[in-house]
């Protein structure tokens, strides 16, 4: 539990909690971006450079911008999100606290803090390329198919109907 990990964990948790709790939708998305940056830094801490940079490129450069566009297009006036009534929050928080309790009990009760941990290895990007083209070529092709289907599907779903409604 080094000091770097504690700072990054604090930043990530603060960002994600703010993303779920703030009133203004745009502020939620910006706090989510902060959480993504914290997560990318944690991936870099874990020596997964490729995943860390892909996280920034895809999530911040893609998903966050997409969320912002969706908020802009679906707001009539000011982007204010009702926080929901108190009953929702109590139930939701209770369920989430229960899930966290079960997970924490499983983690602390397992043998993960008793084993010896391996040393760091360096993963050159070429190894990832080889892995993608040799062992993981079928998932790669299926990902291509999935992305094409998702792209076409999102355009079809979001296109306005020509006649009838405006």
């Amino acid at each position, binding site marked *: 539990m080094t000091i770097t990990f504690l700072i990054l964990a604090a930043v990530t948790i603060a960002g994600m909690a703010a993303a779920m709790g703030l009133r203004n939708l*745009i*502020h939620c998305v*910006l706090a989510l*971006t902060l959480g993504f940056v914290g997560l990318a830094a944690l991936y870099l801490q874990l020596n997964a*450079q*490729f995943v860390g*940079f*892909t996280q*920034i*490129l895809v999530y*911040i*450069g*893609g998903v*966050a*911008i997409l969320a*912002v*566009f969706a908020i*802009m297009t679906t707001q009539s006036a000011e982007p204010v999100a009702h926080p929901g009534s108190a009953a929702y929050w109590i139930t939701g928080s209770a369920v989430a606290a229960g899930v966290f309790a079960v997970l924490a009990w499983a983690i602390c009760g397992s043998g993960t803090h008793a084993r010896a941990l391996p040393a760091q290895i*360096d*993963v*050159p*990007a*070429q190894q990832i390329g080889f892995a993608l083209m040799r062992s993981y070529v079928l998932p790669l092709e299926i990902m291509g198919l999935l992305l094409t289907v998702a792209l076409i599907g999102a355009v079809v779903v979001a296109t306005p109907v020509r006649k009838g409604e405006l």
Partner: protein
Amino acid sequence: MMTRVQMVDQIFVIAKHSLLAHVPAMWQPLCSAVLSVVPVMIVFPLLFAITTILERKGLARQQNRFGPNRVGPCGILQPIADGVKSLTKEDIVPRSADQMVHLLAPLLLVTAAFLGYAVLPIGRNMVITDMNGGVLFFFAISSLVELAVFMAGWSSRSKYSLFGAMRAIAQMISYEVPLVLAAIVVIMAAGTLSTVSIVNLQASYTGIFPHWFVFTPWGFTGFALFMIAATAESNRSPFDLPEGESEIIAGYYIEYSGFKFALFFLGEYLGMMATSAMAITLFLGGWSAPFSFLTWIPSYVWFFAKLVALICGFIWIRGTLPRLRMDQLMNFSWKFILPMTLLNIIAAGVWRFMPGGPLRWLVCSALIAGPFIVLGRATSWQGKGVAVRKYRYAE
């Protein structure tokens, strides 16, 4: 021992090592990092100042007028006057603006712009950090700029700035895909994502000619596509509709004044210089000399010479071409630039697996030039025939 030429070439590295020797061992990593970063943070804003005066004088001469010529001999000290002006101007924030986001947007922009310089090799052995995934890091950081643009446009709570921000983000997203695809050709050819390795691969010579990637058909096309996409990514003319001065006044930074406006300006130009520097690293051989008999000139001199040449190219294009409309811009990106980058990747693959010789050159050039002509005609006619223009003069 080093020859005198090598000593001049490595003078900054030698200076840094000799300064570090005086520092106690515990502080050495921190001081090493500081000594690497501070020169970059001084040199590139200086280059930004030189670029502003170069641009104003260059544009002025293209438009048949003098540029600024009051401050200093031939107006050379104009950036100092501009700096003093922007530092002392009143910082006006609209009352209905979102204060926190309004403040953070230029900071995020400048931070993202500066972070991109961390992986660019400025000279032999002169890079801030040699990352395994350097090129990927650069493109990931430049995607932070889009978010900063949105924050600036939305937080000002003004219709002009929101329009400008939405247009700017749509343009940046549309041109980010061809930018990355044009860079992927180089990564395919070099087999590595590390910028230092890519430059080292280009720094060898056959006869007197260098092995720069721009001297191959796919490299030349890739360079051209990369520079077009880079112009659009930095919102420079002819792609500067989001900040078109004659249309929506200043687009997403319309409500900013004083120091924050200067930060936006700085961030935009730094981004332009960083992308040019990445183009130099990927295609133009980084710090290597163009001919083998010119290697006695230090490597950092070549890097900055190429950078200034590319910046002059940007200024030249700004003064020459008219602005593209939004739909023309998007059509250009998705229907022309993107298919050309994909064809370029195929051409680079063909180049890699064919035996060397004139046939390889012919096949790859035909693979790129044929669709270029076909696509160019298909996207420019837009269904209407090209008619002879009839002029009507006032009677």
